[in-house]
């Protein structure tokens, strides 16, 4: 019996599961690569918008997945980085600076800096405290932005012109889409490398048994902080795209409900699964789009469905 069990578990990594996964990647990538021009030139801009938004949120969810799935750090304040990224576009644009490279550099560096400063405090805590202190920091940023009159306070800023790179104008819907697509592909590849590299393995170790890792001589705090900063920086890029996409930034972008939504995307797609955030973001947005078309009271269905997805946990997440 025991031997049979062992044989089974030995076999498990070699099960065709991975191959299925890989088989789905190519068609999915081809679809995401080829569908947009089709949508655009047949006048289905709305669906191009939906797709763009899904991919942008997938980047954000991917960054959160790095934190939750790899590092085991459940953050309820991740929307803060979306806000930082978006304001990195909005504020310079407000002063007439539309240089995309500058926007992107600001988005990444400010997100990383915010993550470093807050992470240094957050990571001193565990469990419930960690969830709530990350929430507190994002609320702090929210209220800071609400308080700055010069940048529109509660009303936010309208972005009249999107970021421009030399030879590349995000103004065009397709250009923006492919930039987002390229960024997502890059991050997915990076994430894959990271998960299998030393850093990813050490993070996984810290997630499952922090005390053991410390006793082995790993500085769990520093590894987790590095993960936290990296995750924030990636999410800042998502914010950069979201600001450009919506042509508008406001403190509402970093509302805590957005953080909860990102967590949903991660868990629907399966925490720790490489392509999970993409699946999660797509399912989340399409569900919201479909249900809100049915009834004004769609939150009732949506809430019930989300609960069912999490409680059952069998449709998309691992058991």
């Amino acid at each position, binding site marked *: 019996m025991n031997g049979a069990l062992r044989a089974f*578990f030995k076999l498990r990594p070699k099960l065709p599961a991975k191959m299925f996964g890989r088989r789905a990647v190519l068609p999915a990538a081809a679809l995401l690569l080829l569908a947009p021009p089709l949508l655009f030139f047949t006048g289905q801009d709305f669906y191009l918008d939906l797709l763009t938004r899904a991919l942008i949120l997938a980047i954000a969810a991917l960054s959160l997945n790095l934190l939750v799935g790899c590092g085991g750090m459940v953050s309820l304040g991740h929307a803060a980085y979306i806000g930082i990224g978006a304001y990195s576009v909005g504020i310079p644009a407000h002063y007439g600076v539309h240089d995309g490279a500058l926007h992107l550099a600001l988005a990444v560096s400010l997100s990383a800096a915010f993550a470093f400063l807050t992470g240094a405090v957050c990571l001193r805590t565990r469990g419930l405290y960690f969830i709530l202190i990350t929430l507190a920091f994002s609320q702090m940023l929210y209220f800071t932005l609400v308080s700055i009159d010069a940048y529109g306070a509660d009303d936010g800023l309208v972005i009249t012109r999107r970021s421009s790179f030399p030879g590349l104008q995000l103004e065009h819907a397709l250009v923006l889409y492919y930039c987002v697509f390229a960024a997502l592909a890059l991050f997915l590849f*990076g994430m894959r490398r990271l998960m299998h590299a030393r850093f990813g393995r*050490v993070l996984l170790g810290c997630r*499952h*048994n922090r*005390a*053991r890792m410390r*006793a082995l001589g790993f500085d769990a705090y520093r590894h987790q902080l590095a993960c936290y900063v990296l995750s924030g920086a990636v999410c800042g890029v998502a914010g950069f795209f979201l600001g450009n996409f919506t042509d508008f930034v406001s403190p509402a972008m970093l509302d805590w409900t957005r953080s909860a939504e990102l967590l949903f995307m991660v868990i629907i797609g399966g925490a720790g699964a490489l392509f999970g955030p993409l699946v999660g973001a797509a399912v989340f947005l399409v569900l919201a789009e479909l249900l809100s078309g049915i009834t004004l009271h769609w939150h009732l269905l949506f809430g019930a469905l989300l609960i069912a997805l999490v409680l059952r946990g069998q449709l998309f997440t691992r058991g």
Partner: protein
Amino acid sequence: MILQVQNLHKQFGGVRAVRGVDLALADKQIHAVIGPNGAGKSTLLAQLAGEIAPDRGRIVFAGRDITGLAAHKRAQLGLARCFQTADVIAPMTLLENATLALLAAAGNSFNCWSPLARDADLRARAMQLLEEVGLAHDAELRAGEAAHGVRRQLEIAMALAPRPKLLLLDEPMAGLGKSESAAMIALLKKRKGSAAMLLIEHDMDAVFALADTASVLVDGRILAAGSTAEIRGNAEVQRAYLGTPQ
């Protein structure tokens, strides 16, 4: 002396778990700490490992005061420890666990790019580590699915991977069957001489088989200390601990 503990105190709320413990351990020696449940043994060990900060007292390890040092820094200095619950990384295979143990010393743990599994040198060393404790044939088994005894052996292998100067063992025989216990004693005996060990144990056969010296901890205080033979003969100890059936 590899380890010197002076006047260590720890209080939780109103409970004084450790009160004024002194301890000294010579190089390459095995010292056992015995005592009834709730005597403060695990608290003492956690303080030595750096998981719990003492209220008062001093810990000197290999000539260096490590009282305020973080757990991972102590580990880097050569202070390894095993937990009561045979703590390994459950979702990883035995081989991956062993690799992680080697990684701490190998450094470069912030590398985000090169796949760890393709590091042939590290993999070979990890396999060798498993072989030393007789687990090589189970290398691809998930640790969480392994038997308790296997996890215990794996943990000791992981703790010994960086060649520590001192190994803290929290009840290594707990939950093991007779033959497994014997194997564990053999394993530790084999390693005697390469590292000093501080052993917390209820299994008196194991204590007397392994330890050179021993201390008896009762109510957070050292009741007696000396060679194992002396402890065995100490009347007070007999009465306080050994004599009372567990």
